[in-house]
């Protein structure tokens, strides 16, 4: 089933609360904006990952928690965490 923006946001917030070990209520959604990524990995490939080279519409989600901000990238078929401590993560699927 393709994700919509709300589902992608929920997945991102849940991931961040688990990752930081905080309650989900402490994670805030600062902004969501539509964007176009330059490959199927949402320009957030993991090390060594290979990606289809097509332009892909999705969303850029900015979350915050305890004074820090975090960038998630999502499209209808995936959600990724961008540049978390220098690394990218695929959190869905």
């Amino acid at each position: 089933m393709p994700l919509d923006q709300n589902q992608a946001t929920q997945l991102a917030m849940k991931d961040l609360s688990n990752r930081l070990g905080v309650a989900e209520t402490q994670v805030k959604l600062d902004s969501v904006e539509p964007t176009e990524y330059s490959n199927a990995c949402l320009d957030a490939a993991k090390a060594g990952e290979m990606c289809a080279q097509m332009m892909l519409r999705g969303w850029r989600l900015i979350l915050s928690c305890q004074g820090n901000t975090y960038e998630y990238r999502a499209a209808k078929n995936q959600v990724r965490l961008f540049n978390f401590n220098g690394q990218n993560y695929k959190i869905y699927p």
Partner: protein
Amino acid sequence: MKRSPLFHLALGTLIIIFAYIGGVINHQPSCQNMSNSEWKYNPSQIPTITTEKTPLDKSLGLPHNYDLIVKFKEGTPQSIISRFLGTLNINTLRTYSEIPSLSFISVTTSENLTLDDIIASYKANPNVEYVEPNFRYMVDAPSSTKKSPVIPNDPYFESLWGISNVGQEINNKPGGVNGVDINVLKAWELTTGDDQIVVGVVDTGIDYSHPDLKTNMWVNDKEIPNNGIDDDGNGVIDDVYGYNAVADNGDPMDDNDHGTHCAGTIGAAGDNGEGIVGVNWKVKLMGLKFLAADGSGSLNNALEAINYAIEMKKRGVNIRILSNSWGGGDYSKALHDAIKELNKQGILFVAAAGNSATDTDRYPHYPSSYQADNVLSVAAINNQDNIASFSNYGAKSVHVGAPGVDVYSTITGNDYAYFSGTSMATPHVSGVAALMLAHDPSLTPKEIINKIVTTATPVTALKGKTISGGRVNVYDAMTK
């Protein structure tokens, strides 16, 4: 390409006919006289007879009819022309009172002879100036279909600016520039493809049930579908349409759309009254799935997909091209070696230059930047001959530009969509290479690359940004 004995017998018959017409064999009196024809040339009266062969009884292997226009050289004696038209397997449908030495004929011949075979044999006749299929003309053809007589009847043809750009509106955006396409309409006058050429689509898979693709899918005839047995002993069970490296099984069904889109550009069936047409009306597409449903994949799975292609090539499958609309990761010696192995097997490796708007001379993008004689790197252009804003480039590392913005093609679920990316430019060039091989099967990967580079149409926006400095031009690549 193997041909049956029946093919050779039929071809021999044609050669004898021409030896006869050319005066090598003594002749009989003519049975028709062109000069007596009452038919007058009138463009509106050109019959809308398809160029496809018309099977009289395919199931019984009986003959086919082909409709051709034949022009004899000026000065050819009427007696020779009449003898030709009196040949047993030729029925003269029309002559043209105002166009001397031109005839519209119907040829009945063996099922094993293709239209290309017949045209080639007729062209060998020293008295024949040219011979063409009876191209289909559409009375109410849209503007985009008027610059060549070779127009398929696929209803979304006008959406394919990469195939034929006459400045039409694309994807609800203002029109492009007339002629900014791959010049394939002229190439289709030479060939529309060959179902003996197999192109592997290394991607997210192919929706092999798509009505516009299923007739052009490669089928492993040594595998019995869905019997749970590795019938051909290649280590993969029920690999009928290719291989799935993600699931390590024989089902390369697409679960993303990307691979199906690329496959359609290479070879959606042409003139089938359905959807779009690929660069090749007929070809064989092998699904080599290594990208998962989200469009990402691993080095190991890429190697598995390539390994399958090499394995099948060694088993006799005529794989000539792998189309690679993907990229990422650092330099891999293993992947580089795999590509070199493909070259040893005579397989061209067409690769997307990448979508980072980066100079790959300075910052290599893999696999398109691997140094090997069979790697052809492709940048994307839009329908106004500008390099796409996202496209990588490289005066020394990217070979050529091809349509990659707002490209309309097949997607899963019997549907169609516009996609953009060097992913979309790549299958245009893979399709070009397949069409070149249909025209001349002897070409090596290196020769194909050299022809594509040296015959590209010069484009200001690609000068200094690609090796060729231009846009791929399939007709010139086939003829120069």
